[in-house]
Every structure is written in C-alpha cells, then in structure tokens.
C-alpha cells in the first residue's frame, strides 16, 4: 500500500506517529537532563497537534479539551517543574555517561519491531492508521521503560514515566477516537497528582540522600542482609 494514495488525515497521523516514536528514541540517547526534558516537551507538542488534528477530522469536540489538557500538563507544567528541579539541584551541566549506548539504542529498535510482532493479530481488524498508531504507542511505552532502566537520575525516571503516559494517550486518541470524557479527565487528574507528588518526592530524596541518583537508594533488599 502506497502512502501517497492515502488521504491527508491518514498521512498526517502516520507522520505524527513516526515523530512521536522518534522523540522516544531521542530521549533514550540523551545524557543531559535539560535536553531530555526539552525533547519530552516536544513529544507533548506533537501529541497536542495530533489531538487537534483528530478533533478536527473526526468532529469530536471533546478531543479539543484533551488537546488543551495535554498542552497544559505535558508541555507547560511538568517540563517546567522538572527543569526547576534540575537547576535547583545544580545538575544541569552534568552529562550522565550512559553505559552501552549502542546496545540501548539497538534494544530500543528491537522493542519497536517486537511491538509490531505483538500486535500482529490485530492487523486484519483495523486500518493502517490504527495499527501503526497502536504499535507506536506500545513501543513508546516500552521505550519509556527502557529509558528508566538505562538512566540513573530520578528526573530521567520521571520523564520515562510521563512518556509512558504519552504513549498511552496517543493510543487512546488515534486508535479509538479518545476514551469517554470522564475517563480522560480522570487520567489527566491522576497524571497531575502524580506530577505534584514527584515534585514532593524530589525534595524528600534530596534531603535524605543529598542526590537525585537512584542508585544511592539501595538499603532495602529482597533477602535481608
């Protein structure tokens, strides 16, 4: 099937999926926190644009509300909060040496292929947009997990966590035309509360271990010593 023969909406959504996926890869290889947060905000902007596109095309005005919520939370509130923390901790100049960067990137690529494999059975039930959108969102979720595994800074973990939310939101929006409004508001509320709690946590972690490096949190073990 040829992409040029598709209508404008399909083409736009497909490009958006590709870009959202790309942002996840960019985050994966990013050792500097301010840039990591910037890429995360870019992913938020892409999601906002996708929501507006979908709202316009599918004539579902409630997606405009989702777009607004995404913009407010994922582009403005969370990145600015994280940026403030990074500057307060004075780690904005640090470059985290990522171990095995090549291996991480390669496993990221394999995760994306794996997502296609997992969602293979859905192919004959859906159009091309839906399949690709679902696959990209699943791989954004998995890449978010990989980001958390490969980075040691607590801020990077929060970015990973929130980009997982991004992936889920993308799936809900493109593949299913948005979840019912109550659910979407509920999810947005949870994300907001989670972001506030993360802010509180940074403060506690800093005061207790004087660093935001999660490797320093190593007191509790499965089998006690």
């Amino acid at each position, binding site marked *: 099937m040829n992409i040029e023969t598709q209508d404008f909406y399909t083409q736009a959504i497909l490009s958006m999926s590709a870009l959202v996926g790309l942002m996840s890869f960019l985050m994966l290889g990013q050792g500097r926190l301010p840039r990591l947060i910037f890429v995360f905000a870019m992913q938020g902007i892409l999601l906002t644009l996708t929501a507006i596109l979908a709202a316009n095309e599918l004539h579902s005005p409630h997606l405009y509300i989702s777009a607004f919520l995404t913009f407010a939370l994922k582009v403005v509130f969370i990145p600015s909060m994280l940026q403030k923390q990074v500057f307060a901790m004075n780690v904005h100049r640090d470059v985290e040496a990522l171990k095995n960067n090549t291996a991480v990137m390669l496993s990221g690529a394999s995760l994306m292929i794996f997502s296609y494999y*997992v*969602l293979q*059975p*859905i192919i004959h*039930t859906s159009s091309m947009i*839906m399949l690709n959108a*679902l696959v990209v*969102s*699943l791989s954004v*979720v998995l890449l*978010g*997990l990989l980001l*958390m595994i490969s980075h040691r800074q*607590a801020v990077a*973990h929060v970015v990973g*966590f929130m980009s*997982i*939310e991004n*992936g*889920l939101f993308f*799936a*809900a929006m493109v*593949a*299913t*035309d948005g*979840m*019912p409004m*109550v*659910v979407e508001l*509920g*999810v947005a*509320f*949870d994300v907001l*509360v*989670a972001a506030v*709690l*993360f802010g*509180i*946590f940074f403060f*506690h*972690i800093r005061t*207790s*271990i004087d660093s935001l490096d*999660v490797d320093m*949190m*190593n*007191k*509790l073990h*499965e*089998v*006690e010593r």
Partner: protein
Amino acid sequence: MIAVYLLLFLSVAGIAFFALTGHHKDIGKLNTYINAVSLAMTIWLATTVFQHGTILSESKAFLIDSFNVYLIVLTAFVGFTTSLFSAPYMAHEIELGKLTEGRLKLYYSMYQGFMLAMYLVLTTNNMGIMWVAMEGATLATVLLVSLYRTPESIEAAWKYFILCGVGIAQALFGTILLYYAAEKLGNPENALLWSVLHEEAAQLNPDILEISFVFLLIGYGTKIGLVPLHNWLPDAHSEGPTPMSAVLSGLLLNDALYAVVRNKMLVDGATQSHIAGYLMMGFGLVSFLVAALFLHRQKDIKRLFSYSSIEHMGLMTFAFGIGGSLATFAALLHMTVHSLVKSAIFVTVGHAAQITGTQKMAQIRGLIRTQPKVGWGLLIGTVAIAGFPPFGVFTSEFLLLLATMREYPWLTPFLLLGIGIAFAGLFRHIQPMVYGEKPEGQLPIKANLIPVMVHLGLALWLGLAIPHFLSDWFSQATLLISGSAL
C-alpha cells in the same frame, strides 16, 4: 443506590475535612466515626442487593452485584476496625516524636483518600474509571509509605510509586485495547461499561482481547503483588505506618485481584477458551511458591507477613485461574478470610513493634510474658494464616486443594509443598518471638485488641460454619464468575 453516593461523598468529605481544618485532639476518633458510618452504608447497600438483586444506577455509572457487594462490605469493615486500631497507635507515634501534627493530618486525609479509591474501584461499572481509581489508590498511599521520612521509607515509597505507576500503565494500555475492541460494536459512549461488555462479550474480537488481558494481568498484577512484579510490596508494607500495612494487605491487594477477575470474565466470554485462566494459574502458582520460600529469609516482622500476603494472593489468583465453581467459591472465601486474618495480624504486629521498639524479629522476644493478649493474638493469627483448622483459611485452602485434585491433579503436590514450606517459614520466626525469654525492662503498652479478636473470631466462625446468607452470596458470585453453580 443512594447508599453508594453517600458512601463516596462521605469519603470525599473526610479527605477535605482532615486536609483543610486545623488539628483536632480527637482526629483519630473522628476518622473512626466516618468509617463506622461508611460501614453502616455498605450494610444498607448489601441488604438492598440481598433483597432486590443486582443494582445498576440510572446513569449506568455504578454496578453492584453479588460479586462486588460483599467485597464492599469487607472493605468498609476492615477500614473501620483498622481505624479503631490506628487512633491510639498514631497517638502513640506522636508521643514518641516520630510524627508531627501536620503529618498526622496528612495521614488521616489520605486514609480517607485510600478508602474512596477502594470504594470507587469496587462500585464503578466503567473499566476506565476502575483504572483511574486504582491509580488513585497508589497516589493516596505513596505519601503514607514515606510518612516517617527515614531514608528507607523514602526509598520504599519511591520504589512503590515507580513500580506501581509503570505497572498500572500497562493496565491502561490493556483497557485501551479493550475499548478499541468494544468500540467496533458501535455505541462508543457505553463501550467501557462492564455491564454492556459482559452482555456482548461473545461478539468482541478474541485476538484483541487476548492481547489486552496480558497487559491487564501484568498491570493489575503488579498491584496484586504477583511474582516477579512484587518488589515494591514488602518494602511498602514494612516502611509505612502499621495501620497502612493492614489496609494495603487486607484491601488493596484484594481489589486489584477483583479488577483482574472482572476483566477475565470479559475475556473468557470473548475467547471461549481458557487462555486467561492458564495465565492466572501460572502467575499465581509461581508467586505462591516463591513467596513461601522467601518467608524463610526474612528478618523484619512486617516483611515476613508481606511475603505471606504475596503467597496468599498467589493462591487466590491460581484459584480464580482454575475457574470451576468449586475453585471460584474457594477463592472468594479465601479473599474474605485472608483479609480478616492478615489485617488482624498486622494490628498485633504493630503492637508488638511498639512494645519492643523494633521490627527486627531477632530482638522481639517474650511477647506472651510481657503482654499475653498481644502474644496470643500473634500466635493465633499465625496459626490461622498458616491454614490450620478450624479457621476459615483452612476451609478455603481445603476446597482449593479439592478443586485442584479434580481439575489438575498433577499440580496438587506443588500446593501441598508450598503450604508446608510457608508453615515452616512462619513458625520458625514466630515461635521464639512469642515464647522466648522476656528482655529486661520490656513493659506492656495501652493496646486496643478488640479489632484483632473480632477479626479472628469471624475467621473462626467462617471456618466452622459459613452463615447461610454469606454462602448464598458466595454461590451467586460463583455462578456469575464461573458460569456454573456449585
């Protein structure tokens, strides 16, 4: 139906009241009163359901049937008895200088927040709202785990937050896939309502639902504490205040399992196969065996009993996975008795830790000689949780063994082995704590052991004779879940 709205409203009012008003001398009592009224509401709700059958609210937002109504009552009951325990316990922690008044306010406000999330998970008919409430329960309890602000408690809370947050995100992906499958039937507004989905389950695309169940099981399974997703559970239980451990073990784990079973009912309807059941059996059995082994290697008393919780949740997941009427009945009974006994144990453990000033088992000695009630409470609780007759845990485990022998005889040895290992793991630690020599200068404390006695008494009653209305309820729920009568 009014009872549901009042129940939810009461918790919301509780959150707002504790958070916004100043410190009260009787803040603990106030919390108990709120929970007492909630309990009354749920009993009212239960009698309505008992007389009129399943209730679906007009907007279809809430669904109360025989499966969730008894869990709602159980939630309110454990919430109430734990609040009875928590009032003097937290007052004592303040006296010891471990907490400030501001944090006490946070504690009570979030206690109600947690109860609200639990009630919402159980009563809602919307699978999306169920997810939101489940995540809400994490958010409400995460600050309680780090209430003492020690480095360990902050580490535990961070782990809890990240693991459960990421885990439950998988459940949201599963829910989205479910919605994606259901939307194809038309009527997207109702496509997440459980009552609608359950009726039309046979028309849902089985391939999509199979994939979605994997994500749902991993997601909610993180909250159940299934191995290998259980890492947060012992940490969160051991580092938070003890009343929190009691409600986490007694309520949160049950409700997460409830969410999985609700989804399993849909998937079974769509796939007409046993795939969901096999997944649950596998995860359940592994959790059960691994946790039983880990019991032997613990040094902290609260961690010991959190592994015991993982073990029992594994057993229930396994039982729901087998899925016949007998196994389902056993699982429902086990959910009830495990909540009752485990929260009673955590209450006694809290007292024991306050008497000795430590949670390290090596330093807890001579409880019976210091304060016989606490010592006996711990001993009888452990006997009950290890599955001795005549307590209810024995009954449910026995029924489960019967069901396993009937359906999958070759799995029975694993169950027996696990039960044996768990028994040894518990008693090698408990016996010296209860009977050992009393250290110098160890004094009894002011303890409220009524909740413990009531819980253990009920577990005993359920072991000896299940009252008629309750067995009736379990049978109805069994019919609903497994599709066949006992």
